[in-house]
């Protein structure tokens, strides 16, 4: 049984979860591979390994990547989202940090007086402290050299455990704007005993030095509660009221 192009009887559109990138990428790659195969005049089975370089060259892939970037920016009106800072630093023509998108919520979504909320990793005492926003490797390097100020509540938009690895035990508490209570940062916050909110939502940016109180005395979020009705109430972030 031979088939020339690998076109299946049943297929789905690409990108059914939103976005256009798998469709753009795969359609172009598949078309190039098929064109190269046809030009070679050889069978698929004889080409796929023995002449793998002829089936798709690095130069053709680069040309596809370049055309995708242009097309993507035309249709989406932005560069690719990056999670890692290094992507933006090394390839600024391609990337913008995902965390620099519009990530703030309508204030009406929160309890009166709250700036934001999040899923509590473990239950402990409430913490009042000074906000310190940490978004870049340079921020981490500076704090390694200078030390973390006493009473720092770190605001981190990365749910990973590596960006702030040298600093985490020195924070008074953490507000993480991504992930879940089972993300690496959530796991490490629990292990170190550093009060931590994950998947935090804010109605506005928190500013370095701003004093806030975080309600870490709220019940810990159930990591296995996927339905909204099973979830615990989110812990609130409110302006500090000492002396009031």
């Amino acid at each position, binding site marked *: 049984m031979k088939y020339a192009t690998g076109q299946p009887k049943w297929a*789905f559109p690409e990108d059914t979860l939103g976005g256009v990138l*798998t469709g753009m990428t795969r359609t172009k790659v598949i078309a190039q591979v098929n064109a190269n195969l046809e030009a070679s005049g050889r069978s698929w089975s004889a080409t796929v390994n023995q002449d793998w370089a002829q089936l798709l060259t690095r130069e053709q892939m680069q040309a596809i990547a370049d055309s995708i970037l242009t097309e993507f920016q035309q249709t989406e009106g932005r560069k690719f989202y990056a999670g890692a800072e290094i992507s933006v630093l090394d390839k600024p023509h391609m990337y913008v940090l995902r965390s620099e998108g519009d990530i703030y919520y309508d204030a009406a979504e929160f309890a009166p007086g709250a700036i934001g909320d999040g899923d509590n990793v473990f239950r402990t005492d409430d913490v009042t402290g000074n906000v310190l926003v940490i978004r870049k490797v340079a921020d981490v390097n500076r704090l390694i050299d200078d030390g973390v100020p006493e009473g720092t509540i770190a605001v981190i938009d990365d749910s990973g*455990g590596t960006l702030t690895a040298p600093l985490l035990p020195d924070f008074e508490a953490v507000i993480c704007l991504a992930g879940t209570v089972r993300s690496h940062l959530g796991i490490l916050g629990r292990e*170190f005993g550093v009060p931590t909110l994950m998947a935090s939502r804010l109605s506005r940016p928190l500013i370095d030095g701003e004093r806030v109180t975080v309600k870490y005395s709220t019940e810990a979020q159930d990591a296995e509660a996927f339905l909204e009705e099973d979830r615990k109430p989110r812990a609130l972030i409110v302006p500090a009221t000492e002396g009031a």
Partner: protein
Amino acid sequence: MSEWRISEAQLHLVNTALAEHDDTIVPNLLTRTAQESKLFPMLPYFMMSFMQAYYMYPGILRKASEHISPEDVGHRMRNSSIQLGTLAANMGGQLLYLQGRVELIKLGMIRPEDNLEDLWYVIDWHERVMSTYRRNEGHIWTNAAGDMSQVLDERVLQVLEADAYEVDDELRAAVARFSAVTSQYSFLVYCESRVGMDANGPYNLGDQRMLHVRNFLTLGESGLPWMDGVAADIPYQNLTLSLITDDVRIEVTDFGSAYTVPEAYQEHVIGVGLYTSDIFTDRLIPVGMGSKAELIRTLNEIADVVKAAITPLHRRFAAMNFDEMTEAGILAYVYALSDVSFMSGTWDQEEWEGIDDRVRRLWPVYNEEYGTASFMSDYVAFDGLHGAAGEYYIHPYSYRSWKPGADMTLPKSGRVAQLVPAFVLNDHDYSRRASDGATSSRSALPRKTSTYQFVEGGLTQDELNAKARSYKSPLLEAPWRNFDDASVKFGYQDPDVDAMYRYTQENSRLLKNRGSALVRADIDRIRTEAGESTWAEAAARRRAGH
């Protein structure tokens, strides 16, 4: 070129394994959090590591299998806590390879019948390794066992139960700090992934008490080139924590992750032990187990040394550019299978440092956003030109979320598994091995120059390969090799079984020379005679708040 042909029986085994992979990978990936890091470009390296494994692993396994059988690998995994455990054997043995296959099919770079001899070889290798490793329990996947991984032999579990120290406030704090620091270091060593941590269990200790094991792996200088120097002072390559808990639910996934309910389990820990091992040890070696005070001091000292390595390692990664970080991430993921090459004496550092040029040519399109989009396509949406499984198909995992009466449309008829079409039995016109064409690989990272750390000290590549080729253990030879727990159930009075138990008990502080007739009640008696609490007493004390 190979003239190998697949048989009908082999084809059905391959497709059954592909379906099991689908059943396993979808819930594991969907219940994990988003793969993202501010430090590492995770999705580009994640997706390309799959394809690196697809091209790299069949050759690695064939070369290793000339010296060590898959069954030998499985036995050694069970006898020692090494890099190759539940996570690494599943990832390395099957998941990475099959996920690379899926991604390449969806890109139109290969077809489902391609490299069929490789596919059969990898699946067969994994099945043989895991069925040996997990022979006491009988499942290949923890997913099929209800997220439990009860792999260890009774003779080992008895030692872990007997020798653990009851936790007091000081020991609890030391264990918590050790776990936190070492976990954090491990995420960094492995570029934000969990490849360096593994777990097994839970094991039943009666009432609401359980024992489980957490392994911290590849902590020292290893085949990961970025560990040179920064890990020089780390005293152990692999460390194993045995944890006895009261009133905690424990699950261990096929990714080797231990999840507990409640998540904050530390307050429920009542007993702890610490061990090391590597591919040249056939038993767990106690670390700081001479006394409770020594164990506390050892845990704190190791945590101090590991903590000191975090900042220099962080700085080393932070100085890398995008391509170097991506390359490091790919190498970190495929390193999952490294112990197979170490154990077989076929380790070749260059082979494990190079990125295959067939993967490098795909590099330009694996930007961060396509990495995420293709991951979602392959494991969540099951969409695209090659995502459909037929118009009548319903994915079993997606179907679990579908509720009648809720006006929900059925999940669409796609799946991860790309089954091999049975027409291959008619004309056998398919490619056999990905290595049939000329291949090459390159590295852009600084080359490794240090030795490889083992229990007995640092070894060069030549030294470790020579040592591996001459390695022997009585646990790998008949008759001990064939004494599983089902054999012990009936043959516990056999002198050979008794000798095997005494061999396992040789380094035990409380069970030395106790032999094979021991049952759990004897362990309670032995602990009492030694002036230590039984675990029932320790649990009662925890509940009373002492």
